[in-house]
Every structure is written in C-alpha cells, then in structure tokens.
C-alpha cells in the first residue's frame, strides 16, 4: 500500500488503467489526473487523493464546530469555516412548538457563541442545514478554539482515532474535533491545555511527515519531564 503513495499536484497523472476515480481525481481518457495538491492513494479498484490544502466542503453527517454570526426571528446563521454559512432553524432548539412571537432566539444562542453541530442536509442548491439536537451536540461553554486546516483533520484524528486518543491520554484534555478544521480543547489543568494545543498545532504544521505519531509522542513525553 505505502509504496503506491505519491505526492501529486494538479495535472499530475496518478495512474493509468481501469480504476474508479474517487475524491480529487478526474478521468481523462485512460489517465487518472489529480485535481489538487495532496497524497495519492491507489486501492485495488479505485484511486483517490488526500488533499493538503483547501477549504472545508460540508458533507452530510459531519460534526462541525460553528460560531454564531447572526440570527433572524426564525433561524441562526453559523460560520462553519466554509464557503457557505450553516443554517440552524429555531425549531431545532425550541422544539416543534416554537413560536416566532413567544421565543427569543438570543436567549439560547448569542452571536459569537460556539456550537458543536452536525450537518443534517446539504446539496448544491441550498446552504447547509445543521442540527444541534443530538447527544454531544449543542452550545460549547468552555474550552479553547484552535483553528487548523480542514484538510489536516484526518491526520489529527489518526488511524481509528489513535492520534487524538494519544493526545487526550497524555494531557487529560477533552478534544472536540470539527471536520471543518475547528477544534475545541478543554482541560482542567492549564499545562495540559497548553500541551494539547501545542500538539494540535504541531500536527497542523507537519501533517505530511511520515512518522508524525512518534514525533508527537516524543514531544508530549519531553514536556512531562520538565514540568
């Protein structure tokens, strides 16, 4: 698997042959061409490129961290670090018996508040519809916001969550990762908070390095001895 990985830029031919083009590749004749800067991966029957740059594109069921920009009498608008704004209807918070006269939206969420939300629906024609009516979703009261590049979120999570589990174990911090590249870190001790933030920023900078897990582990351990 690893020997098939390649660094590619737009226009590079990833491979030729009967493969199914997946993310960030197009089929041009019998050539499979990358459309972005990233790392190509060839599977048995398909090819994809993991991007290293670019904005967040909403996908249904993604967990995102949003910041409330404004509200009307019927809905909130969330900045979800994308080219589209997240649309959060008031019914989602107040329930089915929401009334535009009786309920004041600002009483639940003010502009500037951070919320953990899920993309409920999104297609080409409308702005993404988000929901906060689920377990673990809703307003975020405490923690620090760290912004990383959305294309590096998979790296931060690691294989089956290995990277983020390691950071949480080493620092005792709780980390909420939004697929849109916004991450909320909360921790009881300020040292743990600082260390977790530093680890996340390190992953953001060195996402393309091969043995990053070991490097992060090393960094987390060195700090332990000093404090």
């Amino acid at each position, binding site marked *: 698997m690893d020997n098939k990985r390649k*660094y590619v*830029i*737009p*226009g*590079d*031919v990833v491979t030729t042959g009967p493969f199914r083009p997946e993310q*960030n590749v*197009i089929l*041009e004749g019998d050539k499979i*061409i990358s*459309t*972005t*800067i990233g790392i190509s991966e060839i599977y048995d029957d398909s090819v994809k490129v993991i*991007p*290293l*740059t*670019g*904005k967040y*594109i909403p996908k249904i069921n993604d967990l995102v961290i949003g910041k409330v920009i404004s509200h009307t009498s019927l809905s909130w608008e969330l900045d979800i670090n994308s*080219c*589209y704004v997240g649309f959060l209807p008031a019914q989602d918070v107040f329930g089915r018996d929401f009334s535009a006269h009786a309920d004041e939206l600002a009483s639940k969420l003010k502009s500037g508040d951070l919320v953990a939300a899920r993309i409920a629906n999104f297609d*080409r*024609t409308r702005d993404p519809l988000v929901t906060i009516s689920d377990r673990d979703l809703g307003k975020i009261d405490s923690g620090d916001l760290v912004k990383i590049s959305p*294309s590096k979120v998979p790296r931060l999570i690691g294989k089956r969550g290995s990277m983020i589990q390691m950071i949480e174990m080493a620092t005792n911090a709780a980390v909420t990762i939004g697929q849109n590249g916004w991450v909320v870190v909360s921790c009881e001790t300020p040292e743990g908070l600082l260390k977790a933030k530093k680890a996340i920023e390190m992953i953001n900078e060195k996402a*393309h390095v091969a043995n990053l897990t070991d490097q992060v582990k090393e960094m987390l351990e060195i700090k332990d001895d000093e404090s």
Partner: protein
Amino acid sequence: MGGRDATMVLLDENGIRCDGRKVDEPRRIMIRAGGLKNADGSAYIEFGDNKILVGVFGPRDVHPKHMSDTDTGILRVRYHMEPFSVGERKNPAPSRREIEISKVIKEALEPAVMLDKFPRTAVDVFIEVLQADGGTRCAALTAASVALADAGIPMRDMVAAIAAGKVADTVILDVNNEEDQAGQADMPIGYMPSLKKITLLQLDGVLTPEEYKKCVDVGVKGCELVYELQKKALHDKYFGKGDE
C-alpha cells in the same frame, strides 16, 4: 519608456539577443508558492526583471449577490500594476490595458479550474505587478495558477505561460521589453502541459503561416519549462525540499 537605444541590435550575427540570451533561452525564472498569510493561496514570481505577487481568496461568498451563479462558482481576476512598476509613474486607476489583461487571464484560467463544485461562490485572484519588464501577462498567469493550486481550488491542470515572438526575422522564446517594443511579433501562450491544451494565445505583429507554427511550437516548449518550475515551487512548499 526608459532609455531605449534606437540603434540597439536585437539579434547579433552569433544569434545572441540584446540581453545576452540565445534565441530559445528564457529569462531567469523563480517561483515561490505561499508567502501571504491572509490570503487562502498565494504565489510570487520573478520572471527576468518582472516581479509579480498573486493572492487568491475563495471559494467564498459573492458580493454583490447578483453576480453569483446558482450552477457554478465564478472566477474573478484583477490584474493591477503598481504606480512604481514602470519607468514613469503609472496612474493606479485601472487602465484599459489592465482591464483587458484581467479578462484575458481570467479566460485563460477558466478551462483549468473546476468551479462547478462550488455553486454560488466566487474565487478572487488578485495580481499585483510590482515591477514590469515585458511579458507580465504570461508571468502573471503562471503565478496565478500556482496561487490557485496553493489555495486548494480543484484544477484539471496547471496553466503555464510564456511568450514567443519574432525579432530580426528570427523566432525567439520569451520576449523581453526591448524586443516587444522594437521586435516584429509577440505571441503570449498559455498552455496546460498535462492535457496538452492551449488556453491563451494572442498575437501582436505579422507572421507567415510557417513562422506562426514555429512560434506556437517554441512557445509550448517554453511552457513546459515553466511548468517544471511551477511544480518545483509547489513541491518545495508542500513536500519539503528533498523530501521523499
């Protein structure tokens, strides 16, 4: 403009041009991807004495709203020359020439970018010419395509550009300011090297059909040289020098 010598020899008997280059030799080209923190993507190019900085934003909301397209994203390009970019102060207001070049660069980039993935958004490309010495549109197009890739805009291919031309009845590569002013023809070419498609082709001057074909061939070869440097710039930024 400048102290152009009326008796200057554009091409001497040994096939050496006024700045010491051979007929098929481009000027020194340096491209750097990134560099601007606040832009989503950026690039800086030095193409001989041309110095051009490009910033890309987007995909982002379209303002004014009526410009947005529900089927696809739109590309907006602004080519601008600094007042100090040429010998005599240039009025910073957009001139007729700058408006034309903005449009030409936009249309040269459009076949490469895939904005149908981002309906109702805009991608803005800002090109600032810090220093001009002939062939700025090609250099600007080259840098704009690096900046778009840096911003993560999906692209079918990079666009590389260079000018071919004719001085002293000889077809040359990479026309500089003197050759543009005193030469017989100038042909900027934008080219997508992997797809082998031309996206920009202009011609100022008179060429015979044979010379025209030769100019295109020379220009396309030049674009392939430029493409290698674009590739290197992006590799240096994203994959580290000598990594892999």
